[in-house]
């Protein structure tokens, strides 16, 4: 080629742009994250979808039951017995609360000093506090559910006691059901009742549906002669609607309350011409469905006095309770207003004071960490803990006499407080015994080692419930002093011995972690065996197994639930007793009760387990080198 030709390289511009390459698969952002974590392979995708299906289904079932059908009254109407025991005199409950505040304060003080709480915990607490305030306020605005009762020629309505403010307008309606198409099983939907939890009204209506569909009853032949009556608290009729005279139109009574008081409404039949056939709904609109929570009851009784107890022919005697169990449809908003809001109102005060106390304690702890000498602060905290023991005993035990702090015995205690008390007393009292047993077990004196091993293995090989029953039945025969000791003390002894055996195993693990060189060096320095054990070996061993000890504490917290089977009313036992009371009808709500207890235990144990995990992370568990 010529130079010229070499110089000009032949270049033809492409006619079309080159095919673009796809950008790499996104692995950032939500989609990317999902791709990597949820859909990375076929198996992955299948398992994700299966899991979503299972979760969705189970979640739907559970939420549907929990929100629309479950009755959580057994929980929020009984927070006091659950917290401090069914035998505990209600007027002394502030002492229990004080005790818990002291405990919480000291705990947060220790956490503030020795640990650190991450930011998001505060965020969660703030959120809970906000929710606790907001929900009851918003809930007031939710409209009340319409209360239905089913009336036919045979089913007599109970009288319904209610409280009305002055000038409040209520609407009572008697709706005859004359259209055959209204007798449909779909109309039963949403009413809480099945073969296991009979709702007599619904059963009657279901039977009526059957009859109508068979043609045995023709609802169009409505001839009941009913009227709505309103009584004042003395049983005088102060308002009455017209008798329906067998027409199929609704009877409506709009009534304005003359004064703030208790009233009773019922449906009566004309004694002269009662009528034979017919089915009607009795509905009450805008009536505030109230619950006998402690605060509400006190407010109501303070304002209005006791509810009327009136006898009427053929009516069941009504009490406040049965009318509150609203067996009907509930919307989501009504769940908030009828179930969640009362619960939050009940625990609000306690929650706020505990949060305040906890924050103050945490603040002091953090301040002390910064400002004071570490050793001094350490001594102050430990000193406060030790001081709190006699203070707590004084607060709970009280002094004699009826005025200031009446004497209480341990048999009065119950509820969550007893659970916490038994666990703390158990773990603290079992510490020295456990250490001694661990040292004894691995001592080189064969007799000592054998006997300690025997004790530990026997106690660990037997179920706790057996030991508790023995503590209850056989221990009183063993020593006279124990015969008169009350059940709580006897069971605490059993729990202590039981925990000590388990603790001994845990500490033995810790003792094995301590390097032999430590003991040898100490011996070379001329320390006696006792000093070696107490000053060198035990501190390292205990520090190494703190997480395991916390685990044992959590385990003890759960095991205290077994004393419910032996006759003490700690929180599981208190709930069991509540649910067995046939008079209040809580026996139908076993699931709600035990789910709540499970949540309580879960919160307690989870928090403790988290603390233990944090301790482990900060190196408390590792042997220091």
């Amino acid at each position: 080629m010529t130079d010229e030709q070499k110089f000009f390289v032949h270049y033809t511009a492409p006619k079309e742009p080159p095919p673009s390459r796809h950008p790499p698969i996104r692995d950032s952002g939500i989609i990317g994250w999902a791709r990597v974590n949820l859909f990375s392979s076929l198996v992955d995708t299948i398992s994700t979808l299966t899991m979503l299906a299972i979760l969705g289904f189970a979640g739907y079932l559970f939420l549907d039951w929990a929100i629309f059908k479950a009755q959580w009254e057994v929980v929020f109407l009984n927070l006091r017995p659950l917290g401090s025991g069914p035998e505990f005199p209600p007027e002394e409950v502030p002492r229990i609360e004080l005790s818990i505040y002291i405990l919480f304060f000291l705990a947060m003080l220790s956490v503030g000093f020795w640990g650190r709480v991450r930011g998001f915990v505060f965020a969660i607490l703030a959120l809970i506090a906000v929710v606790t305030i907001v929900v009851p306020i918003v809930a007031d605005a939710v409209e009340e559910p319409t209360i239905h009762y089913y009336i036919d020629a045979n089913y007599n309505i109970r009288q319904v006691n209610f409280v009305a403010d002055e000038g409040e307008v209520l609407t009572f309606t008697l709706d005859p059901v004359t259209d055959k198409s209204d007798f449909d099983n779909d109309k039963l939907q949403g009413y809480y009742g099945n073969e296991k939890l009979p709702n007599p009204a619904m059963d009657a209506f279901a039977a009526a549906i059957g009859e109508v569909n068979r043609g045995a009853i023709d609802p169009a032949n409505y001839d009941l002669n009913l009227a709505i009556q309103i009584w004042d608290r003395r049983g005088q009729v102060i308002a009455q609607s017209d008798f329906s005279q067998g027409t199929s139109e609704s009877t409506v009574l709009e009534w304005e309350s003359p004064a703030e008081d208790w009233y009773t409404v019922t449906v009566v039949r004309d004694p002269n011409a009662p009528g034979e056939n017919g089915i009607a709904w009795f509905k009450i609109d805008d009536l505030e469905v109230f619950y006998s929570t402690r605060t509400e009851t006190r407010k109501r009784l303070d304002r209005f006095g006791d509810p009327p107890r009136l006898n009427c022919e053929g009516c069941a005697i009504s009490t406040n309770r049965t009318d509150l169990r609203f067996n009907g449809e509930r919307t989501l908003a009504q769940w908030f207003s009828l179930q969640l809001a009362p619960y939050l109102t009940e625990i609000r005060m306690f929650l706020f004071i505990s949060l305040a106390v906890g924050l103050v304690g945490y603040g002091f702890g953090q301040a002390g960490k910064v400002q004071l000498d570490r050793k001094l602060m350490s001594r102050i905290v430990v000193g406060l803990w030790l001081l709190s023991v006699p203070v707590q005993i004084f607060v709970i035990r009280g002094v004699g006499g009826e005025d200031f702090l009446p004497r209480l015995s341990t048999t009065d205690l119950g509820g969550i407080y007893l659970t916490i008390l038994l666990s703390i007393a158990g773990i603290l009292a079992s510490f020295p015994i456990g250490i001694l047993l661990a040292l004894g077990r691995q001592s080189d004196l064969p007799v000592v080692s054998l006997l300690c091993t025997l004790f530990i293995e026997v106690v660990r090989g037997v179920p706790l419930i057996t030991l508790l029953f023995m503590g209850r039945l056989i221990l009183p025969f063993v020593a006279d002093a124990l015969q008169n000791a009350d059940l709580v003390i006897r069971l605490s002894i059993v729990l202590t011995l039981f925990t000590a055996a388990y603790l001994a195993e845990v500490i033995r693990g810790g003792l094995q972690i301590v390097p032999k060189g430590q003991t040898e060096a100490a011996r070379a320095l001329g320390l006696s065996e006792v000093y070696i054990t107490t000053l060198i070996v035990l501190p390292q061993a205990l520090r190494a197994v703190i997480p395991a000890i916390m685990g044992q504490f959590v385990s003890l917290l759960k095991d205290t639930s077994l004393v419910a089977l032996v006759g003490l009313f700690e929180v599981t036992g208190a709930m069991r007793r509540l649910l067995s009371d046939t008079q209040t009808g809580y026996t139908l709500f076993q699931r709600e009760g035990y789910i709540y207890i499970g949540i309580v235990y879960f919160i307690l144990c989870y928090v403790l387990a988290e603390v233990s995990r944090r301790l482990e992370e900060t190196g408390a568990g590792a042997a220091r080198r």
Partner: protein
Amino acid sequence: MRRILIVMTLLLLVMASASITSARQAEPGPKLTEIVERGILNCGVGGALPGFSSVNPDTNRMEGIDADFCRVVAAAIFGPDDVDSKVNFVPLTANERFNALQAGQVDLLIRNTTWTLTRDASLNSNFGPTTFYDSQGLMVKQELIDSGVQSLADLEGASFCSQSGTTTEKNMVDAYTQLFGVAPALVLAETSDATLRDFENGACDVLTSDKSQLAGLRSASTNPSNLVILNDTLSKEPLGPMYLDDDTQFGDIVDWAVYATFTAEELGITSQNIDEFAGTEDIVIARFLGQDESGLGALLGLSNTFAADIIRAVGNYAEIYERNVAPVGIPRDSSNGINQLYTNGGLIYAPAWR
């Protein structure tokens, strides 16, 4: 090492000495002294059976015939004032009731317990006078009646609910085996309300218990009109108080406290009209109320007016019955009037009051 040994030795010495010094004295001390010193009577009850012992949710007070007889004994010992604060009701399940009595956890066990030979002989205890003559019965749902069941003979193959650890269970097994040759299918529960729950949920076809308990459970169920008590009587169930037999004086106190209520009904004295009998001329009534010099109460270690205290605080047998058992659905004249006073043909009979 040495110090650890010393510490351990001391600990063990303390434990040992605690047990050595604690064998009980040779004579059982008077139980009455112990109760008076304590100031409160520990009474074991069921706690969950309407009509016998259950807590009224509105007043938080233990009510029932068993509870009232606890109050009767307490009134005899402590006097008529504020009897409610002198009784400590200890709820016990059927399984643990005898152990609690033997362990001294309760002084007196009034928990609808049947008086049997085995219990009298082998549990080192004695029974007080029978306060309620009952019998064991069966309760079924209306559907079974509609399908033709009339008595136990029609219930072959059915499941039976009962409380574990009671004579009920044993009688059921005996009766069924007698009829059908094999053991029945049993569903056991710890408390009577748990048996009701099992029954209502369909875990068993028949609920068996004392007829009084059945009536109480029926009134507490969600749909009482659906439950029917059959006519069968499986066994005699005389129910009464139970106490340890190591203190005859206490036993006498319990016995005569109960007899006081029977005698009061016989004499026509009630808690409402007792004041009219002050200064009466009737020798028998005066002796009963402690208004004469016979000093019967002192023979028992009680005050001479203990019978009057009882009636004042709790009432006579008729009042106790009508207050507690009748509302549950067992009128006084049911079962051929077995619970009537002997003058009306029943078995309520008190020995001579002198």
